[in-house]
């Protein structure tokens, strides 16, 4: 790819105690690229997602976002995190704040946007993800699918350079998966850089530019979705696909 990578991981290693969860990971993500990370549970894919905005520290290697190495804990890190949106499996909307306040908190406190402006932008984002009529409610009053769409809007509210999705549909009832994936596909089409850890193969086929397959803390295979799903080269990937695609 011609352009400079937006997110770059070089020789990243991480341990949880004796467990080596990320083994010498190298990954470069171009601006506008949608990378889907799949793999069996315990393969390190969620950890990979969480080290990119340093919710988890790493033991060795470097991570750079738009050419800037990830700073250590502190104000600098907080500033950089605002550039990297994150959508969690369990939504994690702020339970004591309304939907609207969930969206305006970051812009007002971190970006110092005027509250009135932030509110206007927040309402536009809620409109975009289809939950504008819920703006004054609290998270617990919304369905899981609505909450996750709000979580995506909350990430978007900071105009991030990249958004990380950590199994965004795994905690949802099946009938709500579609509405969240629709928002994500629209986002991908609009050119957002995305790293998506998911089990939704349909999304991978429809929206991914690249599929990264992880197992045992390593990137085993990476290719475009078409190649990956039809002609996987590694035995691990064939085995994994065989198990999830047969039922």
């Amino acid at each position: 790819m011609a352009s400079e990578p937006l997110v770059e991981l070089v020789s990243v290693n991480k341990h949880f105690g004796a467990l080596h969860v990320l083994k010498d990971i190298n990954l470069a993500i171009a601006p506008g690229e949608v990378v889907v990370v799949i793999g069996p549970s315990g393969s390190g894919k969620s950890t990979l997602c969480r080290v990119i905005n340093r919710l988890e520290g790493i033991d060795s290697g470097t991570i750079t976002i738009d050419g800037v190495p990830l700073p250590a804990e502190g104000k600098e890190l907080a500033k950089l995190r605002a550039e990297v949106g994150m959508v969690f499996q369990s939504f994690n909307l702020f339970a004591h704040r309304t939907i609207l306040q969930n969206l305006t908190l970051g812009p007002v406190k971190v970006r110092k946007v005027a509250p009135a402006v932030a509110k206007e932008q927040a309402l536009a984002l809620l409109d975009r993800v289809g939950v504008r009529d819920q703006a004054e409610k609290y998270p617990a009053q919304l369905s899981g699918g609505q909450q996750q769409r709000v979580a995506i809007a909350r990430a978007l509210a900071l105009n991030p350079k990249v958004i990380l999705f950590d199994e965004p549909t795994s905690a949802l009832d099946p009938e709500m998966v579609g509405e969240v994936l629709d928002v994500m596909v629209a986002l991908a089409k609009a050119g957002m850089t995305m790293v998506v850890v998911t089990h939704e193969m349909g999304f991978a086929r429809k929206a991914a530019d690249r599929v990264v397959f992880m197992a045992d803390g390593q990137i085993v295979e990476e290719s475009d979705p078409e190649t990956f799903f039809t002609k996987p080269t590694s035995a691990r990937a064939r085995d994994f696909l065989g198990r999830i695609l047969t039922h």
Partner: protein
Amino acid sequence: MLDLVREYDVLGAFWVTVQLTVYAAVGSLVIGTVIAILRVSPVRIFSWAGAMYVNVVRNTPLTLIVFFLFFCLYQLLGWHLAPLSARSSTHAFVWGVVGLSLYHASFVAEALRSGINTVGVGQAEAARSIGLDFGQSLREVILPQAFRGAIAPLGNTMIALTKNTTVVSTIGVAEASYAMKNAIEFSPNVLYLIFAVMSLGFVVLTLPMGVLFTQVSRRLAVQR
């Protein structure tokens, strides 16, 4: 009964109890919040200091703390928190409030920490992921929810504080139990009545507190 109340100025004594309670409640909430923040701080020396405070103070008898403050710091070392010209009962009152505040701060800190523990890890992670720093995460996301989760245990602490104000009668603060001691000494013929009046006075103070805290905690509960 009215004679008893009038003769020993029971209402005035309970008014001192109320004042001790209110000042010490504010003091312990402020100090306790600081201690709780220290305890959950990622900086090890801070969390160590917070834990140290809670463990030392919580396990020291209140009487001992009040005596130490009053006799060592005030009388021996001459530390004045009130103007020198103030009456000695004023000095005793101020040191009593300090002692009660310091002591109950350890319980407030623990109540808040239990409240912080009811706030899921995901809330803190989400706060960090939108770029809030440690202080902002605490202020905007964690503490508002922690306070709501801590209201019931805080209520327990405040009720205990109300009753523990009786301890400062030992340094000469003329609160309710001080009046009771006088009444027992000079009117032993109505002993049962004295106890009845005193316990009634405390029930009148603490029962509404319990009801209030329960109601507030229910009203402000964070829906998850």
